[in-house]
């Protein structure tokens, strides 16, 4: 193995860019560079001539409802190619609005249905404008480790039978505030409601995406991910845990929700 390289594609970065999601590509890029792995980040915009086959990792962030509606038709056009990519063990991280668009469909509070690309066997519904959004710090357990982030979504996601969640909620709402599940996982496709951005302060999750992508691309020749100095990232993880779990914070956010 001389030098490894990964292609990272970011879907619609101008439209799906809420709450720091652009930090996810930066985290992957940085953790590659620190290990001598070349990372090439490409933006995919509406109408672009692009094939998922050229990617090792695909990222989709969250957007406001209107922006999600704008990308939806373009994403539909790429639906079967993206499903093939996931069937072929392609790595995906879809956050919030991106997570909803990668599910079966999203039903807005007006009843209007926005078709997804059905990577995840999940349905999102918006309970109506009078029901409060799911907002706040989240801690979830993923494979025995904590993942942290910030959620802000009006829609509630429900997983169909047989669809695995990504993680279990320790603190926060997660997919719908009811069943204690957070996100979804199909093969190497990860869906989540966590912003923050999620990857910079969850270095173990970022590294898992990189590892899966390297294994898929290089097979048994895949390089090991060497440990790097990521004390700053782990401190940020701890600070987010502290904010989410301290009682003061949860009391504050309850008050905030009541007065907002």
């Amino acid at each position, binding site marked *: 193995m001389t030098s490894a390289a990964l292609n990272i594609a970011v879907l619609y970065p101008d439209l799906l860019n809420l709450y*720091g999601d652009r930090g996810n590509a930066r985290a992957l890029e940085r953790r590659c560079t620190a290990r001598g792995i070349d990372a090439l980040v490409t933006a995919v915009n509406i109408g672009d001539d692009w094939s998922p086959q050229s990617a090792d990792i695909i990222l989709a962030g969250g957007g406001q409802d209107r922006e999600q509606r704008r990308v939806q038709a373009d994403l539909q056009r790429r639906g079967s190619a993206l499903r093939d990519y996931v069937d072929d063990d392609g790595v995906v991280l879809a956050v919030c609005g991106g997570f909803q668009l990668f599910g079966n469909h999203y039903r807005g509070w007006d009843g209007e249905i926005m078709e997804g690309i059905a990577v995840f066997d999940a349905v999102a519904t918006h309970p109506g404008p009078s029901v409060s959004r799911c907002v706040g710090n989240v801690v979830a357990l993923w494979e025995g480790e904590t993942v942290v982030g910030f959620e802000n979504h009006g829609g509630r996601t429900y997983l169909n039978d047989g669809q695995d969640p990504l993680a279990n909620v320790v603190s926060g709402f997660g997919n719908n505030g009811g069943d204690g599940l957070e996100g979804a996982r199909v093969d190497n496709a990860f869906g989540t409601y966590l912003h923050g951005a999620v990857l910079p302060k969850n270095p173990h999750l970022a590294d898992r995406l990189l590892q899966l992508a390297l294994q898929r691309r290089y097979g048994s020749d895949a390089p090991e991910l060497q440990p790097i100095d990521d004390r700053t990232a782990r401190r940020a993880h701890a600070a987010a845990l502290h904010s989410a779990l301290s009682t003061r914070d949860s009391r504050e956010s309850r008050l905030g929700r009541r007065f907002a």
Partner: protein
Amino acid sequence: MTNRRVRTNPRLAAAVLAGKTVRWAMRSLGSGGTALPGLVVERLHPHAARQLASRLGDTALVTGTNGKTTTAAMLASILRADGRDPVIHNRSGSNLLRGVTAALVDAASPLGLPPARAPAVLEADEAALHSIAQAAPPTVAIFTNLMRDQLDRYGEIESIARRWTETLAHLPPDAALALNVDDPLVASLEQGWDGPVVRFGIEDDAVPDAPDGDISDAVWDPTTHDDIQYSRRYFAQLGRWHTRSGRSRPTPAVCAEQIAANEHGMSFRLSIPDGHADVALSADGLYSVYNALAAAAGAVALGISSKPIARGLEAYQAAFGRQEDLSIHGRRVRLLLAKNPSGMNQALRTLQRPGTRHHLLVLLNDGIADGTDVSWIWDVDWESQAPYCRSLTVGGRRAADMALRLEYAGLPAPAAPPQVDVGRALRQAFDAVQPDDQLIILPTYTAMLDVRQRLGRMGATNLWDAAA
């Protein structure tokens, strides 16, 4: 003078007295909070604000994402320059209905009567505009801009725009709107409004375009759903815009030309329908020019002429913590409040003076008043600060998140690990600052209150009187 007979209302008077007592108690305890007296009065008398406001004279409401506090302070300064005293004004960002109630209580006599016909400048949180406009019907409503702010509290920008339009239907029909036409979302408010409109904006081809990576929130036209296109874009979504369907930025009647930055702030030529004036602002950044224009447009709607407008703007001193210059033992300190990406990008831009390097103290809290979501720090162009930063210290409850973001941005590594404790972070930052150096402090709202109190105890001079 009014010849309306005003009967005192014992219940209102009792509520006002209780509010004043709470305010007095808080002051003697050295607490800076301003909402509690208003909350107490609201509980005792639910319509207190409306009754107290019924005796007001000209009333200006200032709303929008960024610049409310500064715009309101500038307009109050203009009213004073025009000889209209006393001006009732909810200071220090207490811009929900209870903050307005507190300001009215403060100005009221113990019998529960505010000074008759006193002019009021009221800052209204963009989500509280409706309730405040109901309680205190405005003579002019000033809209500064609508940008991505603390969406964790309110949902999405579009729903705020929709609520504003609903509020307009309940304003007095002869109220004036002062609208920032460089913001396509604000400019569209005049559709469906039959009353008077004062449009303001920048008319200067020499203003540089926004650097790449500056975020824009309004990418579509709220009425036609077309893409917004720009021939010039100054920052965020502000600029000279048009749509394919032929809507374009209206020409402003109140505008700034010949804008220049200097050692002390910004200078520009102000045009209003009845004349011109040269203005030298003691505040930095293009956003300060927008705030001055918003205040000037409000003043025009109240019938004030160009001379007192210019005098009022020049007399304006940066509002509480928004932008303050202090001196401590020969070291210069600048405090710049910012709590969202466009505000922070603008604050950072004022620091980029070729050949200068400063010490930076960034304080990130995640209380309700700061925004509990700190992910916005990933949307700020910190990378642009790297060449201007000599030393870096980070503090606050989410200091660790900030340290991570700034490490990504390539800023110098902090001398010490991130400090949750603001006092410790401040001491660390000062350790690196030599006499004659400048320390720049970038706090979120609650961190600003905290650091300001500590600076006062350290003997900082030129602080705004917190009890004012």
